[in-house]
């Protein structure tokens, strides 16, 4: 951004600068046509499908022909027994993953910004799971979490603990997937926090030290409040990710056993898989509304706090 208003052109060609007094008012120096490529892609891949999907959610549709049926799809969707379960699960999943990512990400970031051995190496190791494919991670953890032959339960058995049937016990399935999601995603949260912590001026810490503050005190009174923008970013990113989560759940449990770890996205996908295109589009509209209804106010709230500071 700062480059746009760099003084160099003024120095070289002062005359055109004077000829464009309006630029001060924030008018872009570029012609509108520069927007075209981005606008075309955005319109084609986002705006058109969004508008069209609102229409198709009101129809019974088999991709080649459709019947207009009003709000029947939404009525059907809310009668779907799996949907209520899916909604609850989605909120549990979103909450568990974002809370754990915030807490663990912050702790790891504090650790990785302190003076420890092999800091660069540890930072890369921390970030590595983020780069893996969700499906691959899902398949590997399905094998690790096998109740009898899985490495996790064998390890627990070696120290005398009887591990649960991670993915096949209805009480554990969703939590197990959420934990894997945290393992995979905490690296990104950590990196965001590292950036946030590093940007806090050292003077505050030095001053606190001079006043005799313990490291706990400086964490709670300096690091935590001044890393708020990072916290806001992490919460929003992981909450959106958690609410839309699908790939890991599908790779690990397919919403099972039965419907016990279904989330909204997997319920919708199953409708699509069964060929109920109108119904699944209606599901996506519902998901869109829910995510917007949660994220928009939350984002406004978090950002406002930032400004007040």
């Amino acid at each position: 951004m700062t480059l746009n208003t760099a003084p160099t052109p003024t120095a070289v060609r002062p005359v055109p600068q004077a000829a464009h007094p309006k630029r001060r008012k924030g008018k872009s120096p570029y012609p509108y046509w520069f927007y075209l490529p981005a606008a075309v892609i955005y319109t084609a891949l986002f705006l058109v499908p969004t508008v069209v999907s609102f229409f198709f959610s009101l129809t019974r549709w088999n991709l080649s022909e459709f019947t207009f049926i009003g709000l029947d799809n939404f009525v059907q969707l809310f009668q779907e027994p799996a949907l209520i379960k899916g909604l609850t699960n989605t909120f549990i999943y979103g909450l568990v993953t974002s809370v754990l990512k915030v807490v663990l990400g912050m702790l790891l970031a504090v650790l990785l910004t302190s003076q420890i051995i092999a800091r660069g190496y540890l930072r890369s190791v921390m970030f590595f799971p983020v780069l893996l494919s969700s499906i691959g991670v899902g398949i590997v953890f399905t094998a690790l979490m096998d109740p009898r032959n899985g490495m996790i339960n064998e390890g627990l058995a070696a120290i005398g603990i009887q591990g649960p049937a991670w993915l096949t016990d209805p009480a554990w399935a969703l939590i197990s997937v959420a934990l894997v999601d945290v393992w995979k995603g905490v690296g990104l949260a950590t990196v965001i926090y590292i950036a946030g912590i590093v940007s806090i001026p050292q003077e505050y810490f030095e001053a606190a030290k001079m006043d005799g503050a313990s490291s706990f005190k400086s964490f709670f009174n300096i690091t935590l409040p001044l890393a708020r923008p990072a916290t806001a970013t992490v919460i929003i990113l992981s909450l959106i990710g958690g609410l839309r989560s699908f790939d890991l759940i599908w790779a690990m449990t397919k919403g099972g056993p039965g419907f016990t770890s279904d989330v909204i996205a997997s319920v919708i996908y199953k409708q699509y898989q069964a060929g109920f295109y109108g119904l699944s589009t209606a599901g996506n509209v519902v998901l869109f509304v829910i995510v917007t209804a949660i994220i928009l106010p939350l984002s406004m709230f978090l950002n406002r706090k930032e400004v007040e500071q």
Partner: protein
Amino acid sequence: MAAKSKQRWAALAGGVTVLALALTGCSGGNSNSGGDAKTITWLVDNAENTVAAAEKVAEEFTAANPGIKVEVETRPQGGDGDNIVKTRLSTGDMADVFNYNTGSLLQQINPEENLQPITNETYLSNVTDSFKPVVTSGSEVYGVPFSTGMAGAVLYNKKVYEKLGLSVPKTWDEFMDNSRKIKDAGIAPIIQSYQTTWTSQLFVLGDFANVVTADPSFPADYTANKAKYATNAAAVKGFEHLEEAGKAGLFNEDFASTTYQQAQDMLVNGEGAQYPILSFALNNIKVTYPDKLNDLGLFPLPGDDASKNKLTVWMPGGTYIPKSSKNMEEAKKLQAFIASKAGCDAQTAAVGAAGPYLVKDCELPSDVPDAVKDMLPYFEDQAKNSPALEFLSPVKGPALEQITVEVGSGIRSAKDGAALYDEDVKKQAKQLNLPGWN
């Protein structure tokens, strides 16, 4: 300045819309190069046996029709594969020839719209009459049978049965008695493999011959929204049996995390005694345990009456040509080859036969597995078998496999499960616009 700016924005918005619409509606270009050696594509599912059989058929076909090469493509099995087929058909991007299910699932890919009818082709006369209804939609026939007929039944380990002195059960009570004795001997009586969810449906789907014996009008009433699984005393039995067996603790200990493949291992090695499954599992066992294949036998899922012991049979999948095929003549030649004795022989040579073929003059090799021999008497006598419900009614819900997992695991009761399945099929019936459902 302001007015000019508005004009510019309008022009820009117009340009964006036009280009965006063009981009949204764009489709991949099809290159169709002429030449002497034609290559046609054939999409099959990625099961080891299907691929092996298809490649052998392709090879023999090219030998018989020099100048036409067949390239076998694969897709996943189950729901993900269905998605690929539906998507490729609706975007006009389907292979020249493809394999897909017959019966109710065929209706879901909209045959009239997407498939090439072959009602008037001469090679259709090679196909047995019992197969034609399951590849018919409206008044047109669309496919030829690939692979063999099969059964939804119980595969059992004969060595375990011999060791414990058991005989093949003819009623549900005998089956439960046998199972308890097997459990006392320290062997898992009934194998369930809920990690591969579709395998959980057999107690319900494989029981259908018993349902239709007790209530012959069930399929018609069911299609017309008059009969329900939850309220029909004969139909709900499948769910109840599943619940009963699960509650009695007759399943293998880790049924929830067992896969289809592991279940076969258990059965063949005698760690488990009985496995309700589709008989095409035999094809797979033939590859993995060729020397133990004949340790296995087969019996129908038993009902209440020993004198009416019937087998529920499944028709093989079909081979179809999409209307979008650019190589129609060559594709039809491949279909004709599959519906001929040479086609059956190629499949038998590649993977053996797990049941009778539905093409005239096709013979089974003399060394068919014992379990297939157990099945043949039921196939030969029309009164001793019934096609599965999915071949008699287009109504089939997508969530049955999750429901049966819940019923078998004790998460949901049989009654609840049946009622939930009745809700589930409504969506399918409405999507197909069946009379009596809207």
